[in-house]
C-alpha cells in the first residue's frame, strides 16, 4: 500500500437491472433507464424466453462496464446463474439481490451473506481454537 497513490474521487454512475418486466418498468418510472447511442440499455427484462446464457452475458457485461455502480438482480434470476454471481467479489459495481412478485427475498441465498457467513461457521470457530 505504501507508495500507491489513493485519491478520493467522486463520479456519477448508473444503476443496472436484471429483473422481470414489472420490476424493470417500475424502476424505469423512477428514472434510472439509460440508452446510449448504440442502443445499449442498462437493463435486461427477463421473461419465459430468456435463456440462462443471455442472463449470464448481461450480468458479465454490467459488472464490467465502468459506468455502472449498482446491479439490481431479482434473486430468482440470480439463482439461475448462482455460480457466476457467487464468484463475483469486486466492491463495485455492488450486486443487490432483490425480491420479485412470486419469489420473496431469502437471506440464505444472498451471495454477499453467503460470503460472510463463513465467520459464523463451525469450521472457522474450530480453526480459531486450534
Amino acid at each position, binding site marked *: 500500500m505504501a507508495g500507491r497513490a489513493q485519491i478520493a474521487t467522486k463520479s456519477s454512475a448508473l444503476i443496472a437491472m436484471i429483473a422481470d418486466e414489472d420490476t424493470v*418498468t417500475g424502476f424505469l418510472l423512477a*428514472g434510472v433507464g439509460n440508452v446510449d447511442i448504440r442502443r445499449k440499455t442498462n437493463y435486461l427484462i427477463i421473461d419465459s424466453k430468456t435463456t440462462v446464457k443471455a442472463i449470464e452475458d448481461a450480468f458479465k457485461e454490467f459488472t464490467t462496464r465502468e459506468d455502472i455502480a449498482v446491479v439490481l438482480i431479482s434473486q430468482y434470476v440470480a439463482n439461475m446463474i448462482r455460480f457466476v454471481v457467487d464468484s463475483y467479489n469486486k466492491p463495485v459495481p455492488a450486486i443487490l439481490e432483490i425480491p420479485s412478485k412470486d419469489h420473496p427475498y431469502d437471506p440464505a441465498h444472498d451471495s454477499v451473506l453467503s460470503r460472510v457467513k463463513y465467520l459464523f461457521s463451525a469450521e472457522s470457530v474450530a*480453526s480459531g481454537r486450534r
Partner: protein
Amino acid sequence: MAEGAGGAAANGGSDEKVLDFLDSVDSYLTTMESLAPILRQGWFDLASARHSMGVFRVSSASLDLKDHSASTYLQMVGHESDDSFVGQPSFSLCKWASADNKSCCSEEEIPDSQLRHRGTSRLSENQEQNSNGDDSLKTVDDLVKKERAKTLSVFGTLVSPKLRTAQLSFETALEVLVEAANIRSSMLSAYSQVQKQMEDTREGEIGPIP
C-alpha cells in the same frame, strides 16, 4: 502489567471490529426486509394502472428505446488506485437530474442559503434570504415535476394516478436500495478487517518457525 493492559486494549479493539461487522450484517438484513413491502406496493399500483390504462400501454413495448440519459443515477465516492476502486466506496442517489441542468434536482438537496442564515438577528435579511430559498425550492420542485412527467409521458399523455403512485413507490425503493448498497460496502469492509485479524491471531499463535 503493561503487557496485560496492551493485551486488553487489543482484545477490546478486536471485539469492536466484530461488533461493527455484526451490526452491519443486522442493518443489511433489516434494510433488505424493509424493501419487500415497498416493492409490493409498487407492483400493486402498476397492476392497477395496467388495469385502467390497458395492458399494451403499460408494458415493455412502451419503453423508450431512443438514446437518452438516466435522470436518476448514483454519485459514487471512493478511493481510486490504479483505475479501480479500493476500500469502502459509498453511494448517494441523485434523483431527477434534468438534461438541461446537470445538477441534482433531488428533493434531498435543500438549498444552502436557507440553512446558512438561520439565527441571523436582522429580520429583513432573513426574510429576503428565506424568500430566495423558497424560490430556489420552487425551481427544484418544478424541475422534479417536469422530469417525473417526462418519464410518465412514455406511457401516453393521460396516465392513471396509480402509475404516479407506482413511480413514487419505486423511487422510495431506490432510496432503500442505495442505503443497502452502502451497508453492504461497510459490511464487506468490516468482514475483511475481522478476517485479517483472525489470520494475524493464528500467525501469532503459531509463532516464528525455528
